[in-house]
């Protein structure tokens, strides 16, 4: 906002001193009072207004207070913002960012805990991005704002308080960190020993997948590569395919082993598309063994005991990896 006067921020309850439900916008309205617009509770309206601003040369960033409310913006995203550029034969651009805090584990119950990004994967004209603790979340958001096309920017609530990781330190000490993809980076964590398994994930679930990979390494001597994506859609899985080619070579059996981890519901999720593309890429479908770790296909319960049982856990990832390795 300092460097580009076209950037506006719109959302509910984002003015100081409150500064937004998750405080992401705190301080902005004090610093840029004319470009931080607090709105009525009108998610479709906010995104539609932002879309019109974007069509006319501004760069709006709309905040949806809880990602669960993206169902309310679906028409604006799918039938308006994401369509305009192609439908109008590339005569317009829609540089719009919609930020949406997703995810559970805070006891918010069925309508304030979901990870609904899977509903927006594969929508033509729309990018879906999600930061993680390996990259620079601010840099990823800047890349989203600089993008000429609409972006759904998925922020897992638990990541707001998580420290960013540094290569070679802490949990990363046992991995070599590779990255690529420029401003929208992917990351590959390679263990010191040849891996027999590839774990693909994004966002907060990298936190769980990392712990699972360490446990597999320490307790079971199973080495896994982790491929962590910042861009969920459109799908660009080359780093994953490269990892699978390596883990096939080093696997004890004949099969590629792919494990996907996400917090959204299992059915027709991110992992389903990743698995399908990995299988299509394989010259022999029988040689790609897959497990998907995801939420149960249930609403997310309020009670912590039930919520834990519904959402994927480190143990679920370890168990799935063991199952794959013993298959």
């Amino acid at each position, binding site marked *: 906002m300092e460097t580009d006067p076209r950037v506006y921020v719109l959302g509910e309850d984002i003015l100081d001193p409150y500064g937004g439900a998750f405080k992401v916008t705190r301080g902005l309205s004090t610093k840029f009072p004319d470009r931080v617009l607090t709105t009525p509770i009108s998610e479709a309206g906010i995104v539609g207004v932002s879309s*019109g601003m974007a069509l006319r040369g501004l760069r709006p960033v709309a905040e949806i207070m809880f990602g669960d409310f993206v169902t309310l913006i679906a028409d604006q995203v799918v039938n308006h913002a994401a369509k305009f550029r192609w439908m109008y034969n590339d005569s317009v651009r829609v540089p719009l960012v919609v930020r949406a805090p997703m995810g559970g584990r805070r006891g918010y119950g069925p309508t304030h805990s979901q990870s609904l990004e899977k509903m927006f994967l594969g929508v033509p004209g729309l990018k879906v991005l999600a930061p993680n603790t390996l990259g620079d979340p601010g840099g990823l958001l800047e890349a989203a704002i600089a993008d000429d096309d609409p972006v759904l920017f998925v922020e897992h609530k638990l990541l707001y308080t998580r420290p960013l990781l540094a290569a070679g330190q802490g949990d990363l000490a046992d991995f070599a960190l590779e990255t690529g993809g420029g401003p929208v980076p992917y990351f590959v964590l390679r263990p010191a020993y040849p891996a027999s398994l590839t774990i693909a994930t994004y966002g907060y679930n990298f936190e769980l997948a990392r712990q699972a990979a360490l446990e597999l390494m320490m307790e079971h001597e199973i080495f896994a590569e982790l491929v962590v994506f910042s861009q969920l859609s459109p799908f660009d899985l080359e780093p994953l395919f490269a990892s699978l080619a390596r883990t096939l070579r080093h696997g004890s059996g004949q099969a590629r082993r792919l494990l996907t981890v996400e917090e959204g519901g299992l059915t027709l999720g991110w992992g389903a598309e990743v698995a399908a593309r990995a299988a299509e890429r394989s010259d022999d479908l029988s040689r790609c063994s897959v497990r998907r770790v995801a939420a149960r296909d249930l609403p997310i319960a309020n009670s912590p005991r039930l919520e834990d049982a519904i959402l994927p856990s480190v143990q679920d990832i370890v168990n799935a990896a063991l199952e794959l390795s013993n298959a």
Partner: protein
Amino acid sequence: MTENYDLYKTMLLIRRFEERLLAEFSTGSLVGTTHAYIGQEAGAAGIFSVAGADDVVFSNHRCHGHFLAYGGDPYRLAAELMGRATGLVGGRGGSQHIQWRNFYSNGIQGGIVPVATGMALAEKTKQTGNLALVFIGDGTLGEGVLYESLNIAALWTLPLLIVLEDNRYAQTTPTEKGVAGSMAGRFAAFGIPVWERETADVLDVRAAAGEALRHVRSGAGPGCLLLHTHRFSAHSKGDDPRSPEELARIRQFDPLTVHAARLSSAETGQAEAEIAAVINDAFTRAAADPFPELER
């Protein structure tokens, strides 16, 4: 030529374009669907005779009349409807989804209103002096996002003119079965002033539109131009449940007939000849144009 002649010619262009289009559909040379503006021409012609050249326009499924009155090229529109590469958006959008200069249209009821509201906000922040016009119908009044937009436009004093063309039927559903209470009252609830006219006279529309546009352009916030009109043709092609008696009755509110009374027969004859040539040229050229290819 006189202003009255120009207004007549604009309405005639819309009428003959839509008639030609329906004829092309009936011969099978066009696929898909269309929503004719026949009967409502006074709306578009009156409004665009007083709108600013750089105002931003968001239209809906029934957009051909708005586009032609805006000054759009009938040939490019015909090519778009025929799915040709030379069409307004290269054959990608078709009848309901066109874009040219500051003119946009989309086929989703209600959803275009917040987008136009955002456009009004953009023009306001850029201090261009332009305003945004958005066209809705009586049927759009059933969509919730419309009211989110009215609220925001009023709260933020945005330069937005909502043109509500009430043609008394949402597809086949009469307003008595689709709209409770008062149309104008919906806008009044948000403190948005309404210029309401029951008319088939383009000069009435022009006067009301002029007042509404002046209000919005003055920076006083959004306004609504509420026009009660009549659609002579079906909603799209074959979906018209109205009786022959009703269709005959509403024909007395023909904006072309009303306005022709102000012109000589020589003038109306000349307009017919000029428009016939334009329409023929548009459709003939478009029909010879290539189809687009999908880029890999």
